């Protein structure tokens, strides 16, 4: 067997494990989801072996994030994968990888540091109310704090996501547990873009499957809806979106495997593409459900809420501005 084929089989095995793990998480409280996912070896994909991890590349995390997206996993999975890796050399790494501590990241805002303590308001921290550990940005990188440390106050969430509701967190002279330097924090943010692209891709795939099933079984005007060309084209566009995202993710994997510097850029464009095409596909899948799509019971709105949240957490709008700026700079 060639190295690439082994690699592919390895990734496919992760995909299958992840699908099953995500499905069995559904009925469990968040903490038990951590143990389930850890038990299935999914939380340490990116973490070093010394922390109980597998020390694999991002492309192994991609199918896991796709499964998390498709299965609406209510767990800060991207955050856990990234923090397990970033803090692998500290005692927090193994605790995160083993699912003993739930960790999340405040993706928006940053705190100020004064006499070694941090203060300020941060936001977009998924499931902060369930977490033990929280990473917050500082002027010089990021720090890990305990959620129940003195000076940490959670605000009620007002975001769209129902699976992993986002919180704002106010920190008042909180003592950090560990730090991450600017370069490593920047890498973590870049890696997060790719994981989010995979998650949105998983959601888009799932919504396409739901829409396809709906219009294939429902009849109006004495015909199955899927026989109407307008709907076939809408489904074809949804498929196109899913393929765009898949192709961009694979391109990133290939570039990363060959150590190409362009991999970073490819992660950004994969995420940008996922937010643009993936969200349009989910909205279209909702439309194809008719009135049914507007109900709480059909999961499409949950995917839409999540994807819109992933769009905000990765600051897709700001990323597009930076991509344009890079283009201008290159031609200055």
């Amino acid at each position, binding site marked *: 067997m060639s190295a690439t084929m082994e690699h592919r089989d390895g990734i496919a095995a992760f995909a299958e494990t992840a699908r099953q793990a995500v499905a069995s998480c559904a009925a469990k409280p968040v903490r038990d989801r951590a143990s389930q996912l850890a038990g299935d070896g999914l939380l340490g994909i990116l973490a070093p072996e010394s922390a109980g991890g597998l020390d694999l590349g991002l492309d192994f995390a991609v199918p896991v994030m796709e499964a998390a997206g498709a299965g609406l996993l209510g767990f800060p999975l991207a955050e856990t994968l990234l923090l397990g890796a970033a803090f692998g050399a500290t005692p927090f790494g193994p605790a995160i990888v083993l699912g003993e501590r739930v960790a999340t990241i405040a993706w928006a805002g940053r705190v100020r540091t004064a006499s070694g303590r941090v203060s*300020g308001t941060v936001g977009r921290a998924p499931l902060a109310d369930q977490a033990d550990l929280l990473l917050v940005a500082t002027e010089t990188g990021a720090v890990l704090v305990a959620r129940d440390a003195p000076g940490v106050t959670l605000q009620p969430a007002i975001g769209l996501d129902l699976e992993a509701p986002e919180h704002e967190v106010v920190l008042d002279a909180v003592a950090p547990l560990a730090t991450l330097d600017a370069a490593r924090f920047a890498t973590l943010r870049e890696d997060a873009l790719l994981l989010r692209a995979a998650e949105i891709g998983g959601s888009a795939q799932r919504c396409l499957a739901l829409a396809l099933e709906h219009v294939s079984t429902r009849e109006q005007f004495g015909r199955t809806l899927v026989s109407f060309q307008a709907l076939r084209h809408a489904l074809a566009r949804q498929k196109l979106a899913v393929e765009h995202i898949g192709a961009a993710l694979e391109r990133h994997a290939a570039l990363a495997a060959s150590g190409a510097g362009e991999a970073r850029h490819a992660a950004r464009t994969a995420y940008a593409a996922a937010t643009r095409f993936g969200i349009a596909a989910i909205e279209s899948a909702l439309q194809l459900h008719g009135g049914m799509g507007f109900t709480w019971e059909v999961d499409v709105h949950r995917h839409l809420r999540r994807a819109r949240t992933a769009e905000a957490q990765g600051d897709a709008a700001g990323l597009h501005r930076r991509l344009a700026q890079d283009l201008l700079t290159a031609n200055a």
Partner: protein
Amino acid sequence: MDQDQAFLPPGLAGEEYRAHVRAWLAAHVPAGFLADQADHQAPDLDACRAWEAAMHRGGLAGITWPQAYGGHGLTLREHLIANQEIGRLALPESVNSLGKELAGPIILAIGSEEQKRRYLPPLLEMREIWCQGFSEPNAGSDLAGLRTRATRDGSVWRVNGRKIWTSGAPNAQRCLLLARTGPIEDRHRGLALFAMRMDAPGVTVRPLRQMDGREHFAEVFIDDVVIEADDALGAPDQGWSAAVRVLAIERATNRMYRAWRFENELHHLVRACRLDATLAALIESGTYHRRLAETVVDIDIIKAYVEPVVERLMAGESIGDRGSLMKLHWSEAHQRFAALALELLEQAPPGAAPEVQAARARFQRLYLAARAETIYAGTTEIQLGIIGDRILGLPRERARGGR
């Protein structure tokens, strides 16, 4: 403002009427009602009822209906004026718009004199809220495929069937019900409209949860419900033509304030962004100029459809299929805007001012709610079909060898 101002002075029309509406609204809008203000608290059903009843007394509802039925006997021009002024304020959506804008006009068109006197005053006084029972589990876009059956039983009708997506059904006292009196093969023929009482034995309402979290629409089960003959609207085979009129109203004139409310939303978005340094820099930078400007244009196009409708209707013309042009445009334009508002406000930094957070919450809800706008009142795909088939008059593909 003295007590007399609560009522519509007789003989007002045109700009005088507008001045009255403005003054009335300035004096009467209850605290916390406006969704673009810092003190906003979504009012409950009772508060909405009381408010809408007051609006009617003040001459802001039932504007064109004859005075004999509780209306104000003015013209559609005043109706448009009231809608413009109401739309400018972020007031709660009417809880009886199906009554005031669909059931009422239909009753006026095909109801008997006795029915007009019986249904219309309680509707305007908000003692009777109406819902619209058209769609069924197997009859959505294909409305003519509906199966709810009404059979004559001596002097009454007996109705059996099931309706779905019935907005406001949990709060309604009456349902504008479309049911079949002939065989299902008859499709458009043999349909009749009824004013069904929602408290009649055999009517069961099961609220459905919407994706925006509200339980506003519902499933309505109709088991052997007796409807008195005098609650049948029009002739037993007049249902389809009446339903088509309802749909034309729904697409073209229902919620005539839409463009002005949309404008209020746009202004609210911009004001909220200006309150926050990060967002202010974003909208000043030019990045969003094009999309904001396109929203301004989109709103003017809605106005360009609505305003002439008034003159055409007053000249006795019907709107017909042209309602599809406007419906398609506003629903898509509003979705584009909702996505823009979401994109902008979600860039607000953590710890943003309460007004900014409140706007964020408003536009998150709007984004979700707007997803329904390309579904109800005829989906986008159906509107495109109507424009192609009936407005453009595209030839139908003929089977080869056919005649």
